[in-house]
C-alpha cells in the first residue's frame, strides 16, 4: 500500500524552468525543410571549402537510406524532418564579431540571464567560454590567453577556416558520418559547435566551456564538437545547454568527438538543462546525441561526466574506444526524469588495447511519471588482455508512477578480462523521510538531501564550481515536487 508520504512525494507540481525566455532578435533563417540545396546554402553561408561540402553531401545521401532507430525505450510522436529549420543565426553585419564589443548587446544580455556573463568571464579567471546561439558561435573568451600556450579554442566554423588540416584529419574518425541516423543527419547539416586542440605536453590552465542555447522557433540545433588532446596534454571541458519554453518539440542532434593521444587526458562534463516540457509533457527538447571518445594513444584517459536534468527525451551514450594500451575510459552520469520526461542513456566502452580499464557509474532518478533507462554496453575484444570493467548502476525512485529500467550488454571475447557489475534500485523510503523530518528538516530539503547523497560519486567528478551548479539544478528540478 502506498503510504501518505508516497502520495506527497508524487504531487510533483510543475517545476519552474527559469531559462524559458525568448530573445527577440533579428535572425537570418532558412525556410524549413531539407535537401541538397539547403546543405549547399549552409555550407556557403559558412564559406566552407569544397571538401567540407562534399562530406556533408555524402552524409546526407547516406542519411536518406537510413531509418530512425526504434530500439530505445522512449516514446514520442514522429519527427517531421521537413518542418525543421536547419539554419538560424542572429543577424549581424556581414563579418563575424571579432571581439565581444561587436556582439549584439541583446545576445550578451541573454547569456547574462543564463548566468554566463561573457564580459565578466573575460575578466574573471577560470573559464573560457564559447557560446553557441541557435546555429552560430557568438563569442569565444580568453582566446588570446590560450593562444599563447598554443591551445586552439574556437567555434567549429572558424576551425574549418583556420585549421582545416586538423579538422580534416580528425573529423569523423571517432563518430563516422555513417554512424547512426542522428549522427549522420548532424554530419549533413551541423551548423556550429566548438573546436579545441591542446598541443603536446600542455596542460590547459582553465576549464574550456561551451554554452549552447536554442532560441529560434522550429529550429533544430545540430552542433558538432571536436576536441583533440595531443600527447601528454590535459584538458577539462564543460558544456551547458538551455532553451526557451515552447509548446512544440524541438530537435537537438549533436555529435561530439574526442581524441586523446599518448598520455593525454580529456575530461568532458555536461550539464544538460534543455527545456523538459511542461508538467503534462507538452513541448520540450528531443535530445538525440552521439558522443564518443577515442583513447587512441597509450595511457590515454577520457572521462565523461554528465548531469542530465532537462529535455523531454534524452538519448545518448557517451562512450570510449579504448584503443591504446593501458588507456582508461570513464562514464559518470546523473539522469533525472520528472513529470513526463524520458531518458534512455548510458555508455559504450569498447576495449581493444591491453590493460584497458573502464569505470561506469550511473545514477538514475525517476520522479512523477518519468521513465529512466540505463543502457550500457561493455565490449572486450579478443586482443584486450587483462581488460577491466567496473559498472555500478543505481536507480532511485520517487513516488510510484515513475520507472527505472536497466539494460546491460556485455560481450567478452578475452578470458583474462575482469568484469564487475553492481546494480541497485531503491525508493526514497517513508522511514527515511520521517527520520529527517523528525530532525526539523523540511520534506523538500529532505528529498534533495537524499538525492544529492545518492549522486555524490558523480558530483565529485565535476569541477568544483560546476558541482555546485549541478546540485542547484537538481534542487530546482525537484522544487515544488513535494506537498
Amino acid at each position, binding site marked *: 500500500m502506498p503510504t501518505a508520504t508516497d502520495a506527497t512525494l508524487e504531487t510533483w507540481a510543475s517545476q519552474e524552468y527559469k531559462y524559458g525566455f525568448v530573445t527577440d532578435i533579428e535572425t537570418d533563417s532558412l525556410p524549413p525543410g531539407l535537401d541538397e540545396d539547403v546543405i549547399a546554402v549552409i555550407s556557403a553561408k559558412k564559406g566552407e571549402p569544397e571538401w567540407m561540402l562534399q562530406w556533408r553531401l555524402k552524409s546526407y545521401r547516406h542519411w536518406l537510406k537510413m531509418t530512425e532507430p526504434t530500439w530505445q525505450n522512449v516514446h514520442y510522436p514522429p519527427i517531421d524532418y521537413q518542418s525543421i529549420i536547419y539554419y538560424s543565426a542572429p543577424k549581424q553585419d556581414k563579418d563575424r564579431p571579432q571581439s565581444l564589443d561587436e556582439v549584439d548587446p541583446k545576445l550578451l544580455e541573454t547569456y547574462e540571464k543564463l548566468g554566463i556573463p561573457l564580459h565578466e568571464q573575460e575578466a574573471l579567471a577560470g573559464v573560457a567560454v564559447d557560446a553557441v546561439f541557435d546555429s552560430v558561435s557568438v563569442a569565444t573568451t580568453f582566446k588570446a590567453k590560450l593562444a599563447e600556450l598554443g591551445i586552439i579554442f574556437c567555434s567549429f566554423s572558424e576551425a574549418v577556416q583556420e585549421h582545416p588540416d586538423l579538422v580534416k584529419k580528425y573529423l569523423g574518425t571517432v563518430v563516422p558520418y555513417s554512424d547512426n541516423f542522428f549522427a549522420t543527419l548532424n554530419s549533413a547539416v551541423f551548423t556550429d559547435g566548438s573546436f579545441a586542440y591542446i598541443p603536446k605536453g600542455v596542460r590547459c590552465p582553465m576549464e574550456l566551456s561551451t554554452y549552447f542555447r536554442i532560441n529560434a522557433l522550429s529550429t533544430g540545433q545540430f552542433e558538432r564538437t571536436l576536441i583533440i588532446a595531443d600527447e601528454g596534454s590535459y584538458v577539462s571541458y564543460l558544456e551547458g545547454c538551455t532553451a526557451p519554453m515552447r509548446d512544440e518539440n524541438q530537435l537537438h542532434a549533436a555529435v561530439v568527438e574526442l581524441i586523446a593521444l599518448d598520455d593525454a587526458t580529456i575530461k568532458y562534463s555536461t550539464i544538460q538543462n534543455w527545456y523538459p516540457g511542461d508538467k503534462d509533457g507538452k513541448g520540450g527538447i528531443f535530445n538525440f546525441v552521439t558522443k564518443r571518445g577515442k583513447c587512441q594513444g597509450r595511457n590515454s584517459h577520457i572521462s565523461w561526466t554528465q548531469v542530465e536534468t532537462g529535455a523531454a527525451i534524452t538519448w545518448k551514450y557517451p562512450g570510449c574506444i579504448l584503443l591504446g594500451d593501458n588507456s582508461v575510459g570513464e562514464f559518470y552520469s546523473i539522469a533525472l526524469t520528472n513529470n513526463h520526461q524520458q531518458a534512455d542513456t548510458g555508455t559504450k566502452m569498447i576495449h581493444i588495447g591491453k590493460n584497458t580499464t573502464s569505470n561506469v557509474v550511473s545514477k538514475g532518478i525517476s520522479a512523477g511519471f518519468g521513465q529512466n533507462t540505463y543502457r550500457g554496453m561493455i565490449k572486450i575484444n579478443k586482443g584486450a588482455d587483462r581488460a577491466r570493467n567496473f559498472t555500478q548502476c543505481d536507480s532511485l525512485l520517487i513516488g510510484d508512477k515513475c520507472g527505472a529500467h536497466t539494460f546491460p550488454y556485455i560481450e567478452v571475447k578475452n578470458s583474462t578480462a575482469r568484469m564487475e557489475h553492481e546494480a541497485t534500485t531503491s525508493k526514497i523510503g517513508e522511514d527515511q523521510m*520521517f527520520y529527517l*523530518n*523528525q530532525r*526539523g528538516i523540511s520534506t523538500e530539503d529532505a528529498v534533495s538531501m537524499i538525492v*544529492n547523497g*545518492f*549522486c555524490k560519486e558523480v558530483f565529485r567528478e565535476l569541477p568544483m564550481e560546476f558541482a555546485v551548479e549541478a546540485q542547484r539544478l537538481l534542487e530546482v528540478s525537484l522544487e515544488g515536487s513535494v506537498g
Partner: protein
Amino acid sequence: MLEIRNLHASVEGHEILKGVNLTVTAGELHSIMGPNGSGKSTLAQVLAGRDTYEVTQGEVLYEGRNLLEMDPDERARAGVFMAFQYPVEIPGVNTAYFLRAALNSIRKHRGLEELDAADFLDWVKDKMKLVDMDERLLNRSINEGFSGGEKKRGEILQMAVLEPKLAIMDETDSGLDIDALKIVAKGVNTLRSADRAIIVITHYQRILDYIVPDFVHVLVDGRIVRSGGKELALELEEKGYAGMEQKNAATEPVAS
C-alpha cells in the same frame, strides 16, 4: 508542557492506543514501561507525527498548541525530539552535513544565527565527548553500517546537539553493553534541566538506576494501567506485567 488526553491511534484499522492519558511538566523525567507490542513505540511515533498512524480520538497539547495539527518537521523545530528505537540508515547523506542542516533549521526557528561548518564542528565536538563517540562517525553516511550501539549513541548525540524541549527516547538502552549504558545515561542526565522534559521508554529497570525517573508509567495493551514513582519499576521487575494487568483490571478499570 505536554498533555495527552484520551489518545486513540490505529494502524491499518487496528487500534493500538486505546485511550492514553499523560501529563508531562517541564523539568520532569517520565519512564514508560510495558510488554512487547503494547504500543510504546506507537505512542512515541504519534507524538513525533508519523503519518502511518491514524489518530482516531483524543488530543495532545504541546506548550498549549495542538500538537496533532503540526507536521513532523514543525514539531521538531518546536522542540520535540524522538530517539528512534530503530534509527534509519540513509546512504549517501553525510552525518555531519545532516546534523548541521537539522540544527540550523531549528536555530532559525528559534531566531538564532545559523552555524557555518567550522562553528558547527566546534559545537558538535563537545557533544561527542559527552557520549564518547568516535568523531569519524560524523563523516559517514547517516547510520549506515553503524553498529547497534553506535546507532543508539548517535541518537543521544543528536539529542545533545539539537537541545530539544521534549525528548522521547524509545528504548535507547536496548542492545547496549553496560559501559555504553552508563554513557547514554550520562548523556541523558546532562540534558536534564528545569525547562526540558524527557520521556524514557524502556524494558529494563537497570537504566533507571542511572537515570532516576520522577514518574513511571506502565503501558499495557494501549492503555496506561499504572503510574507511580521510581519504585514502580522495581515492583514490575519482581512481578512482571501479567500481575500488573490483572491488578489493574480488578481494582481500577479504565474507561474507554
